[in-house]
């Protein structure tokens, strides 16, 4: 198993930390992982993205140009990364703020109204965990017990009281992800 994922959105949406929690969960489950962020001027300009690879084998390149899954959280990222999903792959996006919806018909497309859901329950900070939950529903590449350990390792000890809230958000994400276009 090798899963190559791009997570892309605005800075502040928790794109990098979502990737880190996913990667750390992989480490806890004894998988090979890599987490390669964009740290250039684009990050300073407001958009952020990270490539996360989780595999049972040694990871050759941490930088790839086609992905099994793209998780897209703003329009700029949609413009940039829709075309990078491998044929037959998965695109997950939050329609909030998206003006041009994905048009490809050779991939599986899902929406997750995570921003809406997170604000509804007054937890805008766990927005990224709702999205992560949606992803894990489709691709259960790490088991919930290891996600729990990943959260413990990723969050500073003083924030460990927030882990149940994060796990609730992950659960919510699993419930609200919706298929928009599926291949047969």
């Amino acid at each position, binding site marked *: 198993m090798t899963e190559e994922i791009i997570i892309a959105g605005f800075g502040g949406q928790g794109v990098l930390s979502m990737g*880190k929690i996913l990667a750390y969960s992989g*480490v806890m489950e004894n998988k090979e*992982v*890599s987490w*390669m*962020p964009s740290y250039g001027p684009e990050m300073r300009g407001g958009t952020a993205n990270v490539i996360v690879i989780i595999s049972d084998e040694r990871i*050759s*390149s941490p*930088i790839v140009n086609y992905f099994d899954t793209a998780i897209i959280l703003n329009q700029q990222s949609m413009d940039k990364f829709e075309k990078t999903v491998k044929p037959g792959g998965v695109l997950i996006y939050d329609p909030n703020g998206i003006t041009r919806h994905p048009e490809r018909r050779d991939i599986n497309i899902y929406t997750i109204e995570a921003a809406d859901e997170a604000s509804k329950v007054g937890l805008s900070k766990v927005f990224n965990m709702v999205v992560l939950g949606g992803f894990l529903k489709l691709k259960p590449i790490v088991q919930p017990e290891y996600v729990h350990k990943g959260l413990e390792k990723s969050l500073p000890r003083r924030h460990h009281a927030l882990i149940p809230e994060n796990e609730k958000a992950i659960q919510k994400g699993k419930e609200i992800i919706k298929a928009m276009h599926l291949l047969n």
Partner: protein
Amino acid sequence: MKELRLMKGNEAFAEAAIRAGADGYFGYPITPQSEVMEYLMAEKPHERTGMVVLQAESEVAAINMVYGGAACGKRVLTSSSSPGISLKQEGISYIAGAELPCVILNVVRGGPGLGTIQPSQSDYFQSTKGGGHGDYKLIVLAPSSVQEMADFARLGFDLAFKYRNPVLVLSDGAIGQMMEKVELDEQRPRFTEAEIISNTPWATTGKTIDRERNIVTSLDLDSGKQELHNLALQAKYREIEHNETRYEAISCDDAEYLIVAYGTSARLSQKAVDLLRAEGYKVGLLRPITLFPFPSAIIAKLAGQVKGILTVEMSAGQMIEDVRLAVGCRVKVEHFGRMGGIIPSPTEVVEAMHTKIIGG
């Protein structure tokens, strides 16, 4: 027991330096390596091992603090990125001339000048062909993973003390910024004062009545003596070439074509090798781990076996000169790379292999 963590390359290097028993870090911030000092400042190694961490007023000050610490027999290090490493070159030349051990990390960004903050490998010439003035060599280690960032902090100190020579860890923005799983060694104690006096009898540890003064200098106004010093340095560099050449050969046994690449480019190229092998082409990857000493002998040997060699570097083509020297004119050697902070994709490497080597 070894400890498993998910860390950035820069952080792994910093933690590994503490665990290698470093006595002091002196640095000045610059992207993309600022996490080294940020991590050390947050970790407060002074409370763990007594290690000093100091933000100097400039890169020039930092390298001269390293010079001073090394002269006292201490395990000291600095880190910077390309423009900052250029500023340190005078000090590095002095440290090499005075034959002192230290570790220097360069997390390379695109140049020339201030260039860009994104990854590049355009400091190969500076690292392996001098950089500063005078006939000297650094031992140059090129990590291609976060694990090697950690491993080479300790290996760097060990080689530096074995040969009384500065060691440069030549990384890049991608290896520095990315996170991977890393196994950390256990804490090694810092040298005690007694160990420094017995292990490094040349160090300026305070004159005792039973020996002459120890003088650490790179200056000798007597040309005859200076030449003898130069000859001794050259003999040392030959010994390092003989003992310390390191490389990794991946899928080379049956290879009909070869890629030579180090650092981030080696990772991309490894994926390219997988893709090319899936297309039916027998391609191997030779990854130099030491850039000085350069693994010329194995490349020369493989040149007798393959039909063509592609070097992949994030530069205009620098290491290719050493590959061509090793190969002679026996097979075609071509370069592929991107500049300006752009990391090529594995599929670009595959295309370059087709157009420049297999079909070229």
